[in-house]
């Protein structure tokens, strides 16, 4: 959204292929159209040529109806106000009333005040727009990591052992045959964990054991994780006690576990 609201043409939302009626953008109302017409015609707001403006207002209203725009009640209220003011302008001033209360009031006055009031708020909206633009151009220290906001619980050795026991149990239950040989080294698994954590900040502890083909693989992976925790390269946490364990990149000064 950009541009000066005071200068924008009344915009109509494009007709949607399925829609039968369309809605005017919430920003545009009858007062906006009047201000637009007054500016376009470059007329003095204190001396609005009411007949001309009324005619143009009604033309726009017709156009909106032709386009199947759902013309809300306030548009019709304004149309009748304009027609009323126009007819009052045509009437000669009542000499009796003039004697009582001095010169007759211009029938346009109330409308003018309403328009000026509306223009003031459009200007105020413009001021807020500018302020927001400035505020969007400043940063404050980012809030701490979402991770820490989640009230992380540190993991005890017992939690880790319990999680590992479950991994082994699941492996034993699923495995059909154990493929012997093809040994994996501690260094290889440590490198793999580091590699995975480069791509993602946080990984579920149990997912490191997915696709394991031997108990040896499980044990080496487990030792690799423990080794990385010891060297503070990774840390383990839970969102609450006894919950799933997550593995995250270590933070040198605040590593958990």
């Amino acid at each position, binding site marked *: *959204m950009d541009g000066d*609201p*005071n200068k924008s043409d009344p915009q109509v939302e494009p007709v949607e292929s399925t829609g039968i009626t369309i809605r005017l*953008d*919430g*920003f*545009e*109302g*009858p*007062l*906006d159209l009047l201000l637009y017409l007054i*500016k376009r015609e470059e007329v*003095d*707001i*204190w001396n609005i040529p009411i007949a001309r403006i009324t005619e143009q207002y009604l033309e726009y209203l017709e156009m909106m109806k032709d386009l199947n725009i759902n013309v*809300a009640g*306030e548009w019709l209220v*304004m149309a009748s106000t304009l027609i009323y003011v126009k007819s009052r302008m045509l009437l000669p001033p009542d000499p009796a009333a003039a004697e009582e209360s001095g010169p007759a009031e211009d029938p346009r006055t109330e409308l003018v005040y*309403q328009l*000026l*009031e*509306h*223009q*003031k*708020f*459009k*200007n*105020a*909206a413009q*001021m*807020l*727009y500018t*302020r*927001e*633009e*400035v*505020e*969007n*151009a*400043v*940063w*404050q*220290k980012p*809030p*701490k990591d979402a991770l820490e906001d989640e009230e992380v619980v540190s993991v005890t050795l017992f939690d880790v052992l319990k999680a590992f026991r479950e991994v082994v149990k699941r492996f034993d239950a699923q495995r059909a045959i154990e493929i012997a040989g093809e040994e994996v080294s501690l260094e290889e698994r440590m490198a793999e964990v580091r590699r995975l954590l480069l791509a993602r900040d946080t990984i579920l502890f149990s997912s490191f054991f997915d696709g394991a083909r031997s108990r040896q693989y499980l044990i080496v992976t487990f030792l690799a994780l423990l080794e990385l925790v010891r060297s503070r390269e990774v840390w383990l946490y839970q969102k609450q006690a006894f919950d799933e364990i997550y593995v995250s990149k270590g933070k040198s000064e605040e590593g958990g576990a």
Partner: protein
Amino acid sequence: MDIDELVPILEAIIYVADDPVRPEQLKEIFPDESYDKIESALAKLLGEFNERRGGMAIREIAGGVRMTTRPEYHEHIRAYLKTKPNARLSLAALETLAVVAYRQPVTLAEILAIRGKKSSSALKTLLEKKLVTIAGRKQVVGRPILYATSREFLIHFGLKDISELPTMEEFTELAGEQQ
């Protein structure tokens, strides 16, 4: 404690704070120090810090103080962060917000009268974004809900308090100029 001792501590607290730091919060940390002293230390910090004309500023926002980058460096910061500008409020929302800010507490019917069009969806957006809050009910028939701007509004627009907004008369002059 000496004011000169207090100043760097306040600076450190303002740096770590996620929200504008209010004097009342500082008073809790320094119960032995008077409000006057805390306020003087804050004023001294703001003066010294902002006089440096560095990349950061300490600004008075929503009844507190907050450390932010200076707006003039936004292009470089954005290039570094590789982020796009934030989503902006629609003009309909801004106009509704202007009515709430200057006429608060205000009812939906009063907003409609000023804007000359339905404003409920714009108001809903503002409530969802917590820029506007419910400030009770008007003691008239039907007891309509009254709306007012929130603390989040002050933060969003970088205002110290609501009186920092230009007065409505200033917009009258503008409206006159634009005839």
